Each structure stands twice: as C-alpha cells, then as structure tokens.
C-alpha cells in the first residue's frame, strides 16, 4: 500500500434523493490493479462505479485519477471506460464502426483508426466480424465488441458491470481468462462490479466487499475467502455456521458453550464452513435431518443442541442415514474469527 493511489475515492457519498446509496467511501486503487466490488444488490457497488464514470454526481467527497481531481469533470472528458452489463452496443452501426466511434470523435486519421480498430478487434479475437451488426452476434461476441470499444480508447480505468453474469458457464470461464489476459497485455487498471463471489475470487487482485453503501472488507481473495472480518462477509463467502462469542464462550440458542481453545479478546464471532465441521467424533451430538449427495461430497443438515448445523463430508466416507445420531465437533482452531457480527 506504499504506492500512491492511481484512482482514489475519498469520503465519497452518493444519494438518490434522500436515500444514501454510498456513505463516505474511501478506496485507494493502484495503477494496473484488478479490483472487484462485491456485494448483494443495493449495496452501492454499481452506484460507486457510476460515480467513477461521471454519469452520477457525488453528493460529497472527491475522486482523483492519475493525480488529477476529476470529481467535477464531465463523463465525456474523464478517460474512463465502461463495459455495460447489457453491452450497450450501437445497434445501427457495424462492429467496426462501434469500435471506431470514440476514435472518430478524436478526429484521428482514418488509417490510424483502421489500425487501432483492427488491433482492438484482434485483441478480443473478433477480426473476422468487422462488418456484422451487433444483432448478428452472440452475447459473448457482443461483450467482446464492447470490451474492444472501451479498450481502443486506452482509458485510464476500465470499469466492467457484471462482466460474466450474462454468459453461460463455459463462456464465463473463457471470458474470465480473456479478461485476465487483456488486463495483463494492456496493463489497464480495472474495476469490476459483481454479486458473484466466485467471479470476484477468480479474477480480482483485491476484493472490496460492500454492504449498505460502506466497505465491509477490503482484501485479497485469500483474505476475504479465509479470513472474513464480519458475519456479513462470512455469510457471503459461504461460512454457513456462524455463532457470536460472548465473554470467551460460544453463544448458542441453548445458552453459552465453552470453547476448546481461547480466542483473541476482540473476537465477536466464530464461523465454520460446512467442510470445517468434523463429523463422527467430538464434544457435541446431533441428529441427521437431511443428507444430499453433491458429487465429491455429501452435505448434511444436523439438528443439534447448538442449533442447525450444516456439514460436509467426503463422499468416499460412509454415509450417515437421516434420523441417525452422531457426534461432531466445531474445532475452534479452524474457525474464522469475526470482529463484527
């Protein structure tokens, strides 16, 4: 974090009428970074992105890009690119003209435009599609045209709105690889918005988890996945067994339970993924309510004195039948320690 921020959001507040959508957000982003804004709908991630583009004017706070305050700069002068979730290609223009649109506004000589559009379309693997209309392309191809259209402008920051959500699973993997390659080759700073944790984990250098217009956690994918700081983040990244900690003891629906290992004093909660629950041995007892085969694993729902527990076990291990009783453990040393509940 010693690098100076290339794109710097300071105390950024955005409102729709009286509703505050983003509340005093501070986010420094380094040059060449790939950042994911992750959160459920309504968390302010899209609003933040629109503020960076200039399509939305902040109520207060500043946005600095490459050493220049762009807070009041109109959207068409910002050198910020955006790949829309709907792609937003110009339906009346060919693929070539879509990509050339911004370059023509810059009044470049036509040989230069031809070269840059050609390079742009080659970069996204659409060299043979110059004369097609957007309606004649598949969704994935349209998205790559939108990407090329933004990239040829050599924006200082490229923003992507839910870049993978409209694609099917196979295309999603392909596009993900494509985005990473484009980012590597062009070195452009990228910020993308997503509600899908897998997308964020797979793509981003750093993830910004947002909730109610604020940053809930900012960290590497490993941090967010393994060390969530709050109940919200833990829940979002798949910790399904979450308990608060009071006075060094686990707070459950049937009263406090002692921990096997002491936890740091600032801990306010502990969380376990289903696969972290140890089944078949341990200090707790439960009854199997349901079991589901999930390929490599079996997923269990247990009724226990702690409340409902979700657990997961290797499918190669013998299965526990519904209705059977078994002992289990929530190993404190494996748990994620939450600072906020």
């Amino acid at each position, binding site marked *: 974090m010693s690098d100076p921020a290339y794109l710097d959001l300071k105390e950024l507040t955005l409102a729709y009428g009286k509703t505050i959508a983003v509340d005093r957000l501070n986010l420094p982003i380094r040059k060449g970074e790939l950042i994911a804004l992750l959160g459920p709908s309504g968390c302010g991630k899209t609003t933040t992105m629109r503020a960076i*583009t200039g*399509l939305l004017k902040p109520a207060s706070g500043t946005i600095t890009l490459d050493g220049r305050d762009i807070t009041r700069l109109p*959207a*068409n*002068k*910002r050198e*910020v*690119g*955006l790949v*829309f979730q*709907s792609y*937003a*290609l*110009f*339906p*009346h223009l060919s693929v070539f003209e879509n990509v050339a*649109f*911004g370059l023509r*506004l*810059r009044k470049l000589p036509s040989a230069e435009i031809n070269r840059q559009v050609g390079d742009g379309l080659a970069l996204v693997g659409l060299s043979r599609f110059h004369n097609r209309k957007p309606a004649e392309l598949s969704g994935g191809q349209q998205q790559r045209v*939108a990407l090329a*259209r*933004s990239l040829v*402008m050599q924006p200082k920051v490229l923003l992507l709105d839910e870049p993978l959500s409209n694609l099917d699973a196979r295309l999603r993997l392909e596009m993900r690889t494509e985005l990473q390659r484009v980012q590597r080759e062009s070195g452009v700073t990228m910020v993308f918005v997503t509600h899908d944790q897998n997308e964020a984990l797979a793509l981003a250098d750093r993830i910004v988890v947002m909730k109610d217009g604020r940053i809930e956690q900012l960290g590497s994918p490993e941090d967010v996945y393994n060390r969530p700081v709050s109940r919200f983040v833990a829940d979002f990244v798949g910790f399904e067994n979450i308990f608060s900690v009071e006075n060094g003891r686990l707070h459950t629906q049937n009263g406090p339970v002692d921990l096997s290992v002491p936890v740091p004093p600032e801990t306010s909660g502990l969380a376990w993924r289903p696969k972290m629950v140890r089944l078949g041995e341990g200090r707790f007892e439960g009854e199997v309510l349901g079991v589901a085969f999930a390929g490599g694993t079996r997923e269990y729902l247990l009724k226990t004195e702690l409340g409902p527990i979700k657990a997961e076990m290797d499918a190669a291990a013998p299965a526990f039948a519904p209705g059977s009783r078994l002992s289990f453990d929530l190993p404190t040393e494996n748990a994620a320690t939450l600072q906020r509940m």
Partner: protein
Amino acid sequence: MTSRLYSYLTLAVVFLFLIGPFVIIVAAALSGGETLAFPPQGLSLKWIAKVFTVESFRQSFALSMFLAIFGTLAALVLGVPVAYAASRYRLPFGEVIRTVVSAPIIVPGIIVGLALLRYLVIPLNVSVGLALFIAHTALILPYAVRVVSASLDNLRSDIEEAAVLLGSSRLATFFRIVLPNIQSGILAAFILGFVTSFNQVPVSLFLSGPGVRTLPIDMIWYMEITYDPSVAALAALLAFLSISIVFLAERFLGFSRYV
C-alpha cells in the same frame, strides 16, 4: 354452424360499410354522366382529367400539401425534443406536459378552429394562412410525440451513456446515436401527421379565406356550386394516394407497429 354463419355475416357487413363508400366513389368518378350519381352513367376518364384543370383544386392542393409537409415538420421539430425529454428525464410537470401536448386530439376540432379564429385571427390580425399552419402543427404534435415516444421507449438509454463515455457530448450523442435509431419512428410520425393534416376538416373549415382553402374545404365548396363527378374523381385520386403511402410505409417500416 349458425354461429359461424353469423360471424361471416358480420364480417360481410363490416366490409360493406368500410369498403362500400370507396367503391361507390370510384364508380362515380369513372362516370360518363354530367352529375354526381350512382350507379354511374357509362364509363369515362373525363372527370379524372377535369380535376387537373380546375384552378381552385390546384391552389388548394398546393396549400394542403404545404400544410401537411411543413406542419408535420414543425410538429416533429417541436415534438421530438418533448418526446425525448419525457422518456429520458423525470420532468417536474411531466404529466401536465403530456396532457397539454395531447389536448388537440381530445378537444373537438370545431372548438379549436373557432378558438383560433376568434382569438388569433380576428383580434391579433394574424393571417388565415399562418393560423392554419399553427393549427395544423398543433394538431399533428400529439401524434408526433406519441409515435416518437414509442420508438424512444424501445431504445435503451445506456447506449447513450456508452457514447458519452467514449467522449461524445450529450447533444452529439442525440444526433449520432439516438436519431439514427428512431428514424423509422420519425418517418412513421411524418406519414401519420401528413395524412392527419391532409384530411383535416373541422379546424380548416373556420380558417378559410379568400384564396386560402385546404383541399377538403375546397371540395365542399365546389360541390355546393357544381354538382359534377369531378369531386368524386378527386376523392378517388386522394384515396389512392393515401393507400399507396400507407402501403409503402407498411411494406418498408412496419407502420402498424406505431399506430
């Protein structure tokens, strides 16, 4: 079986009423006799030929064409920005604006004509020609706004944002991105406005003066003095003109999507 018979019968009656007058007019236009009559006495094209020799028809046709073309253009110049503003921005008095803009459709033409005559032409000494132009523009405006709004609603607004982020100003975006994508809607509005203006009677009836008469009004005048089949011939010609315009519009634009 009977219900099917009834439906065919209903259909036949509907077609009779819709197409019947047209058939009668065409037949009367091709009459060889001296008065407007049905069935026609003999067949001839002489009344069709005569239409082109009547000086007042030529004058009023020119006026009607002028009103239909330039009234519609004026209505589009006013109406496209209204439609754009209404579809893209939450206007403070959006509902009021919409109502005012569609008022000329709702208020009977007779009243519009009388009002314009009484409060524009007489006290302000506005020429009848100018008053006609204003009246036709106002009458076409609601259609222009509506038809253009329909095609604007089908155009996603994020493509405009995309253009802005590629460096285009809002105004340039309107001309480079919005206009090319709503041009078929604008053409449809033009055709609808043209036909509306050309067929307009009640308002034009009040706004007539010496040498200033639209074609439909002139036809009424003509008939009161000369009861020959040339009016039928003219009506038939106009009907063919309208039909071919609408046919071409449907063929190339899918006109019926807009009206």
